[in-house]
C-alpha cells in the first residue's frame, strides 16, 4: 500500500517534522500513525548538520561535508546552530573553533555573524541552516514525492532572535513552516503518546550545543508546560572543547588564526568527540595524535579523567534544573518521570548526574537522538489537519525568557515574565515627556537581569505621528503579542486620538524581511519565476485548507447562519473551489479574501459558542451522564414490560 502511495503523482503533500540540531538533523513523518525517521540510502536517519562550501561554488551537506571538515576547516561549517540569531561580536565567535569570520563593514552587517567561506563567499548562519533544511527537504521528497508543510523544532530556551533566525532559515529553504516547536515539548509529545500516562514530568535535553529543561504536566492529552530553563550555548560541543584543549596541549599546538592551526584544532575536536563516544562503552581510550615535526604522540584518556573534565559543564545544567523546578512550584520527588533527550545524555556521567539530581532513574526508552523529530512529525500531522488526534492533543507552551522594556536609568521593566503561557499579550501605556513630542523610541529586551544592558537586545521600535500636545498629555498604548511560535510583535496606538501609530522596527540581531526576500531570490535559479511558482503552490494548499475548514464549520455551526449569510458563504465557497482549479495565484487569494469577508460575523458567533461550550463543558458532561442513566431506567422498564 505504501508503495502505491509513494508513486501516486496526485498524492497529497505530506507534512514533516524537522529536528534542526547542532550536531545532527533529522526529518521525520508519520507512517501508519506512528512517527518514523526518514533515512538516506545508507539507512542513516542522522544527517550531520555540516555544510561544506567548495571552491567551485558547490554546497555539500551532511556526512560528506563532515568528512571535508578536516581538510577544509574554514569552509566547513559545523554546529551553525550556536550562531543563530547572534551578532558579529558575540562571545560564541571567540571560543575555540575553526571558522573565519568576516568583520562587519556596517551596522546592518554587524547584526549577524558572517562566515567567510570558499569561493570568497560570505554566508550568515541563516543561510547555512537553510542549506541543511534544503537537504532534509530533498531527503523527504525522495521518499514521499510530495512534501507538505513542516514543523521545525528549536531549543525551548531560544530567545526571540534565535527563533526568528530559525524561521527565516525555513523560509529561505522554501519550507512552509507551520510552527516552531520547543524540543523538550516535542519529546514529551512523543513519550506521552507512547506511554499514555498522565502526570508531572521533567524533560532533560542536553544536545550538541544547547541545554533545555522543561517541567510539564500531561493531563488527558493536554501537555501543559509549567516552566522551562536552560542555556542555549551549552552542550556536547563544550565537552569536546574541554577535551580538545587537553589534546592540543599534548600536541604542543599554540592556537592562532593560521590555516595549519585551524586544521589541528579541527583534528583535536574530532578526536575529542570520538573519544567521548568511545568512553560511553569503555573505561579508557588511547588516541594517536600528530605533534610538531611529523612525530606522533599517544594520549590515554580514562573515563574518570573525562568525567572530571566535563563535571563543571554538567553542573551548569543542575542550576537550570533547580530553577525550573522552583519556577514550576514543584519538588523533584513530586515528578512522575524524567525524560532524557539529546545525544549528550548518552554520556554515562550525565545519566548518573540526572538520576541523582531528580532522585529517580531517567527514562530513555525512545532513542534520544530521534525523539524530538518524532514529536515534530506528530505535531506537523496535527497542524496540517490530517490527524484524528487533532481534537485529542494540545500543547501549551511558555515564554522561556522575560520580555521587557528599557525604562529610565537603563532598568529593564518586565512586561511579560518568563514561563507565561503562550500565546500571550500585555499592554503598557506611556506618555510623552516633552511638549509637542511626535516620536517615541522603545527598546525591547529579553532576559532576567535587572539592567537592560545585561539583557539581550531584541529591537528598537520608533513610533511616529503622535499628535503634538503638551508633555504628559499623549497616551501611547503599546501592545506586546507573543504567538504560539514564541515570536514577539509590537504595535502601538495613541489613545486620545485612537490612531494606530506607525512602528518602525530595527531588529538588534538577525536579518530584515527584505534581506531574507533578497536571499530567496538569489537562491532560486530563475528568481522571480520560481518564486511565483512556489507562491502559487502555497496559495493552493492554503486555499484548499480553508475550503475544508469552512465546510467543516458549516456542518458543525451552520445553524448560526441566517439564510442570506448562508447563501453568501456557499457562493464564496463555490468561487474558491473554482479558483483552486485555476493556476492564477492572485485569483485564489482574491477568493480566499472574499470567503474571509463572508464568514467574518459568523466566525465571531462560532467563537462565542466554542467559549460557551468550553465553559459549560463540565455541566454538559453531567447532563449526558444523567441522560444515560435515565435511558438505563427506561430500558429496565421496557425489559420489565416485555417479560410480563
Amino acid at each position, binding site marked *: 500500500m505504501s508503495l502505491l502511495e509513494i508513486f501516486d503523482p496526485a498524492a497529497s503533500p505530506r507534512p514533516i517534522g524537522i529536528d534542526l540540531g547542532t550536531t545532527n538533523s533529522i526529518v521525520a513523518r508519520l507512517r501508519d500513525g506512528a512517527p518514523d525517521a526518514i533515512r538516506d540510502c545508507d539507512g542513516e536517519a542522522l544527517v550531520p548538520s555540516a555544510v561544506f562550501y567548495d571552491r567551485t561554488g558547490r554546497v555539500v551537506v551532511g556526512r560528506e561535508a563532515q568528512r571535508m571538515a578536516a581538510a577544509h576547516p574554514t569552509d566547513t561549517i559545523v554546529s551553525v546552530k550556536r550562531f543563530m540569531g547572534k551578532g558579529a561580536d558575540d562571545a560564541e565567535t571567540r571560543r575555540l573553533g575553526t571558522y573565519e569570520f568576516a568583520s562587519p563593514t556596517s551596522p546592518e552587517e554587524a547584526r549577524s555573524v558572517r562566515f567567510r567561506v570558499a569561493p570568497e563567499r560570505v554566508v550568515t548562519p541563516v543561510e547555512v541552516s537553510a542549506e541543511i533544511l534544503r537537504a532534509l527537504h530533498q531527503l523527504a521528497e525522495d521518499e514521499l514525492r510530495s512534501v507538505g508543510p513542516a514543523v521545525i523544532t528549536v531549543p525551548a530556551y531560544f530567545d526571540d532572535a534565535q527563533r526568528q533566525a530559525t524561521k527565516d532559515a525555513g523560509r529561505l529553504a522554501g519550507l512552509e513552516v*507551520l*510552527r516552531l516547536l520547543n524540543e523538550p515539548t516535542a519529546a514529551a509529545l512523543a513519550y506521552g503518546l507512547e506511554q499514555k500516562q498522565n502526570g508531572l514530568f521533567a524533560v532533560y535535553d542536553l544536545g550538541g550545543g544547547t541545554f533545555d529543561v522543561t517541567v510539564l504536566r500531561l*493531563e488527558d492529552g*493536554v501537555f*501543559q508546560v509549567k516552566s522551562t530553563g536552560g542555556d542555549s550555548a551549552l552542550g556536547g560541543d563544550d565537552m569536546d572543547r574541554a577535551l580538545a584543549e587537553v589534546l592540543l596541549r599534548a600536541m604542543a599546538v599554540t592556537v592562532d588564526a593560521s590555516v595549519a592551526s585551524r586544521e589541528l584544532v579541527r583534528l583535536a575536536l574530532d578526536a575529542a568527540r570520538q573519544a567521548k563516544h568511545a568512553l560511553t562503552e569503555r573505561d579508557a581510550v588511547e588516541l594517536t595524535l600528530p605533534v610538531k615535526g611529523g612525530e606522533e604522540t599517544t594520549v590515554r584518556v580514562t573515563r574518570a579523567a573525562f568525567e572530571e573534565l566535563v563535571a563543571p559543564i554538567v553542573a551548569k545544567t543542575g*542550576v537550570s534544573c*533547580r*530553577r525550573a523546578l*522552583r519556577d514550576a512550584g514543584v519538588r523533584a520527588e513530586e515528578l512522575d518521570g524524567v525524560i532524557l533527550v539529546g545525544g549528550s545524555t548518552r554520556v554515562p556521567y550525565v545519566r548518573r548526574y540526572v538520576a541523582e539530581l531528580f532522585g529517580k532513574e531517567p527514562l530513555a526508552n525512545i532513542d534520544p537522538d530521534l525523539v524530538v523529530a518524532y514529536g515534530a512529525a506528530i505535531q506537523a500531522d*496535527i*497542524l*496540517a*489537519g490530517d490527524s484524528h488526534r*487533532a481534537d485529542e492533543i*494540545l*500543547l*501549551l507552551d511558555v515564554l522561556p525568557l522575560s520580555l521587557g522594556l528599557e525604562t529610565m536609568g537603563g532598568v529593564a521593566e518586565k512586561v511579560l515574565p518568563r514561563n*507565561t*503561557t*503562550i*500565546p*500571550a*499579550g*500585555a499592554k503598557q501605556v506611556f506618555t510623552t515627556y516633552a511638549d509637542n513630542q511626535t516620536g517615541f523610541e522603545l527598546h525591547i529586551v529579553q532576559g*532576567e537581569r*535587572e539592567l537592560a544592558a545585561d539583557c539581550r537586545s531584541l529591537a528598537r521600535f520608533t513610533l511616529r505621528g503622535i499628535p503634538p500636545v503638551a508633555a504628559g498629555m499623549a497616551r501611547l498604548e503599546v501592545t506586546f*503579542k507573543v*504567538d*504560539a511560535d514564541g515570536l514577539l510583535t509590537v504595535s502601538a496606538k495613541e489613545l486620545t486620538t485612537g490612531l494606530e501609530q506607525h512602528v518602525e522596527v530595527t531588529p538588534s540581531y538577525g536579518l530584515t524581511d527584505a534581506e531574507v526576500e533578497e536571499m530567496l531570490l538569489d537562491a532560486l535559479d530563475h528568481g522571480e519565476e520560481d518564486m511565483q511558482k512556489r507562491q502559487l503552490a502555497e496559495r493552493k494548499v492554503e486555499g484548499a*485548507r*480553508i475550503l*475544508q*475548514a*469552512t465546510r467543516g464549520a458549516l456542518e458543525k455551526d451552520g445553524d448560526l447562519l441566517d439564510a442570506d449569510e448562508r447563501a453568501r458563504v456557499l457562493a464564496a465557497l463555490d468561487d474558491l473551489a473554482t479558483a483552486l482549479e485555476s493556476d492564477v495565484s492572485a485569483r485564489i487569494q482574491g477568493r*480566499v479574501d472574499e*470567503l*474571509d*469577508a463572508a*464568514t*467574518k460575523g459568523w*466566525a*465571531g458567533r*462560532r*467563537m462565542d459558542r*466554542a*467559549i460557551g*461550550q*468550553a*465553559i459549560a*463543558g*463540565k455541566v454538559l458532561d453531567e447532563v449526558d451522564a444523567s441522560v444515560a442513566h435515565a435511558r438505563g431506567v427506561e430500558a429496565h422498564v421496557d425489559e420489565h414490560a416485555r417479560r410480563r
Partner: protein
Amino acid sequence: MSDAFAVLGLEPRFDLEPAALDARHRALSAALHPDKFAGSAATERRLALGKAIEVNEAYRALRDPVKRAECLLAARGVPIGDGAEPRPPAELLMEIMEVREELAAARRAKDLPALERLERAMRTKEQATTAALTQGFAAAGGAVELLAALLPELGKLRYYRRFFEELEAAMDELST
C-alpha cells in the same frame, strides 16, 4: 484589563480551587489555541488568537493571589493602586526593611542556606496573610467597606512578593 473571572467564566471568589482554574484554562485553550485554527481563514485565526491571549492573561492573573484580590476589589468598585490605598503601617515597613537587610547580608556572604531559611520564614508569613485574605473575602461578601478593609493585608502580600523577587534573584546569583 477585563474581568478575569468573567473571561474564564468562573465564579468570582478569592479561595479559587487551583484545580478548577487549571481545568477551565485547559478547556478554553482546547477551544481557542492557535493550533486549532491552523487551517482557518485569516479573520478567524486573528479572533481566536486574541481570545486565546485574553484567556491566558486571565489565567495568569487569577493564579496570582495579589492580582486575584485586585480583580475582586476592582469588580466591586473598591479603588486600588497608588494613592487610592492606605499607606503601609510603620511595622510592616520596619519588618520589610529588616528582612531586606538580612537578605543583603546573606547575599554578600554568599550564604545560600541563610537565604533558604529566610525564604521559609517569609513563606510562612505569606501563607498567614493569604489565609487572612481568604477569610476576609469570605466574611465580606459584597460589602464594599469590609472589602476596603482588606487593603492593608493585600498591601502586605505585595511587599512580600517584591521581597521574593529579590530573594530569587539573589538565589540565582549564588547558584551560578
